[in-house]
C-alpha cells in the first residue's frame, strides 16, 4: 500500500505534469526544427505564431460557444482548431511572401534571417495584442478531469490522489497522432521526400527538379499547423496570455537544440528532456521516500536536490553540457 501511495504521488506531481509539459514543448520544438532544417534559420517568431494561432482558435471557440455548439466532454476548441490552423497558415504564407521571400532571393545569410524573424516576432506580437488584448483568456470547456484527485482516492482507497486533466490526456494523445502523421508524411509521401531532399542538399534537390517554392510553402503550412496545435493545447491546459507565449520560446528552443536542430526525433526527445529535468531535479522527494522507506529511515528534510529557483538553470545547464559534448545535439542535427 505504501509503495503504491509513493508511486501515485510521484505520478501525480512529476510524471503526469512532466509528460504533458514535455508534449507541449515537443510540438513547439518540432515546428522550430522543421523551419531550421528546411529554410535554414532559427525562427524566433515561432512563439508568437503559436499565440496567433491560439488567438484565432479562441475567437472561433467563443463564436461556437455563442452558437451553442459543443463537443460534450471534449473542449469546443478542438472544433475551432482547424480554422485556427488555416488562418495561421495563411498568415505565415503572407509573411513569407512579404518578408522572407525577399531575403531568400537575396541569398541572405541565416543570421540575417534570424534578425528578420525577430522583426516578424515583434509585429505578430503587436497584432495579437491588438486583437485579443494582453490579459489572460480562458477558453477551456467540456470535462475538466479524466480523473480527479478526490475521485481517485475514493475509488482506490489510497491516501494519495492521482489527477489527470482531460487537457493533459488530450495533449499527449494529440502529440502522438501529430508526430506519427509528421513522420509518415516526411518518410512516405512524395512531398515529404522532396522536403527531406531539399533539407539535405538544396542544389542537388533543385537539379533533380524539385520545385523550391512548393517545398517552402508546405514547410510553412506544416509549421503553422504545429504551432497552432501546440499553442491551442498549451492554452487549454494552462491559459492563454500573449506574454507567456512569447516567453515559451526559450524552453522550446532549448528543446530543439538539445535534441539537435533539424532533427524531428531530436525535437521530441529534447522536449521531454527539458520538461522532466525541470520537474525532477527540483522535486522534493520527502513524501515519496516517506512512503517507500521504512519508518525509521523516513527523511525529515525535504530531500530536494536544488530549490525550484534553479529550475531554469537546470534546463540551460543540460543545454550547455549537451552542446559541449554533442555539438549537434542528441540526435545529430545540424550544428548551430
Amino acid at each position, binding site marked *: 500500500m505504501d509503495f503504491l501511495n509513493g508511486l501515485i504521488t510521484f505520478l501525480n506531481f512529476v510524471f503526469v*505534469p*512532466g509528460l504533458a*509539459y514535455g508534449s507541449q514543448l515537443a510540438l513547439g520544438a518540432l515546428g522550430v526544427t522543421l523551419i531550421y532544417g528546411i529554410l535554414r534559420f532559427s525562427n524566433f517568431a515561432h512563439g508568437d505564431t503559436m499565440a496567433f494561432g491560439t488567438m484565432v482558435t479562441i475567437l472561433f471557440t467563443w463564436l461556437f460557444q455563442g452558437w451553442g455548439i459543443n463537443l460534450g466532454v471534449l473542449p469546443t476548441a478542438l472544433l475551432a482548431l482547424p480554422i485556427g490552423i488555416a488562418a495561421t497558415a495563411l498568415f505565415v504564407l503572407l509573411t513569407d511572401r512579404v518578408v522572407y521571400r525577399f531575403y531568400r532571393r537575396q541569398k541572405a545569410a541565416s543570421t540575417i534571417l534570424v534578425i528578420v524573424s525577430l522583426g516578424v516576432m515583434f509585429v505578430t506580437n503587436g497584432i495579437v495584442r491588438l486583437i485579443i488584448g494582453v490579459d489572460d483568456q480562458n477558453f477551456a470547456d467540456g470535462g475538466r478531469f479524466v480523473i480527479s484527485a478526490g475521485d481517485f482516492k475514493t475509488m482506490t482507497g489510497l491516501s494519495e490522489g492521482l489527477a489527470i486533466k482531460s487537457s493533459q490526456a488530450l495533449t499527449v494523445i494529440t502529440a502522438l497522432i501529430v508526430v506519427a502523421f509528421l513522420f509518415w508524411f516526411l518518410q512516405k509521401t512524395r512531398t515529404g521526400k522532396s522536403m527531406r531532399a531539399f533539407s539535405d542538399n538544396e542544389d542537388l534537390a533543385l537539379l533533380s527538379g524539385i520545385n523550391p517554392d512548393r517545398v517552402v510553402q508546405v514547410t510553412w503550412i506544416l509549421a503553422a499547423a504545429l504551432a497552432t496545435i501546440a499553442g491551442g493545447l498549451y492554452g487549454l491546459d494552462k491559459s492563454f496570455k500573449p506574454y507567456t507565449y512569447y*516567453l515559451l520560446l526559450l*524552453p522550446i528552443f532549448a528543446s530543439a537544440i538539445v535534441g539537435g536542430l533539424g532533427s524531428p526525433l531530436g525535437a521530441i526527445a529534447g522536449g521531454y528532456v527539458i520538461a522532466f529535468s525541470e520537474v525532477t531535479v*527540483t522535486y522534493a522527494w520527502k513524501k515519496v521516500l516517506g512512503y517507500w522507506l521504512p519508518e525509521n529511515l523516513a527523511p525529515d528534510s525535504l530531500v530536494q536536490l536544488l530549490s525550484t529557483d534553479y529550475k531554469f538553470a537546470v534546463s540551460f545547464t543540460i543545454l550547455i553540457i549537451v552542446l559541449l559534448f554533442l555539438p549537434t545535439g542528441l540526435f545529430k542535427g545540424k550544428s548551430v
Partner: protein
Amino acid sequence: MKKLLLASVATVSFGAAAAAEDIKLGILIGFTGPIESLTASMAAAAENAIAEVNASGLLLGGSTVSSVRGDTTCAIDTAAATAAAERMITADKVNAIVGGDCSGVTSAILQNVARPNGIVMISPSATSPALSTAEDDGLFFRTAPSDAREGEVAADIMIERGVKSVAVTYTNNDYGKGLSEAIVNAFKAKGGEVTIVAAHEDGKADYSAEVGALAAAGGELLVVAGYLDQGGLGIIKAALDTGAFDKFELPGGMIGDSLAPAVGPGLNGSFGQVAGADTASPGMMALAEIGKANGFDVNSPYTTESYDAAALIMLAMQAAKSSKSTDFAGKVMDVANAPGEQIFPGELAKGLQILADGGDIDYVGGSNVELVGNGESAGNYKEIEVIDGVQTTVGFR
C-alpha cells in the same frame, strides 16, 4: 559667570516658548514624479489640519502654524529630495516635517538631513519594512503601516482560523520576498509551522515543479504572496488541479475581482487580507465631511494619513509645550495611543485644550492611528474571504 549665562539663556528660551510664535511645518512629498497624482490631495489634507489648529488659536499660547511645501520627486532623484529638505530646515527653519513619501527618498532624507539637524519626520506613505529598523534617534514616525504589518495580520488570521502549518510561495521580487519573510516570521513567532518557502517566477510556462515541491513539503494551506494575474494564478490553478492544496491564504497582491472567476469554485473558502480602512469608521466619516467642504478626497491613497501626520506633530508640540523637534519627539507616541480622550478629525481644538489643561488624549484621526513598534502605524486591513466565487470583506483589522 558661566552658570549665570546658562541661567539667563534658559530663562530667555523659556520665555520664548511661552509666548506666541510662528511655527513652520514642512510638507515634503513628491509633487512631481511617480505619485504626483496623489500628492495634491495629501498636501491639502495636511494643510487643512494646520488651518484647523490655527483657527482654534489654542496651540502653545496662540501660536500660528504655516506650511512650507517641498518636492521629493518620489523615486527619481534622492539628491533633489535631500536638497529640498536641507533648504526647508536651514533656510525656512521648519520645526518639523510631514514626509517624505516614497520609502527610498524618505530613508535618504532621514539619514542625511533630519537626523543631523534633529528634526522630527512623520511620513504618511512610506511602507518599506526596512524603515522599521532604520537608525532614527527617535525622530522618525509614520502614519502608514509597514509591509511587515501585513505579515502579522496574515499570521493572526491564519492562527485564529486554526491553521497550524503552511507552505509559502512568493513572486521572486522585493515585494514578494519581503512580504513572505514577514508572514513566515510572524507565523512562526505565533507557534505555526512553515514547511517550505519557495519562489516562483512570473509569466512562466509551467509551474508543476514549484507545485510538486510545495505539495511534497505539505501543509494545511498554501500562502501565495504573488500577483493575481501572474504566477500566483498559475500556482493556484496547478495546486488545485493536482489536489496538492485546496485552501489558500491571499495577501494584497492576490486580492482583485478577476481571481475568483479565473480559478473557479475551487477558490471558495480561501481567505486573505488587503490594506484599507473601514470607510464607515467615525474617523473616516468625519474626515470625509471636512474633505468635502475643503476640496480634497479622503479616498485618495494616503490622504487621511497626511492629515493625521500633521495633526500628530501639532498635538505632540502642545503636549511637550515646545515647538522644538527634540523636545516633542518623545510625545508623539503618547498623543497617538491610549490612554486618554479619543480625538477624531475636526476635533483638534478639543485635543489641544485637553493637553493644555494637562490631560491625556488618544488621537484616532482618519486612519485609526495606533503607533506600534518603532513609531509606525499598526495599519488597517480588510479581512477577505472567498464566498460563492466572490471576494467578500468579512472584517477589519
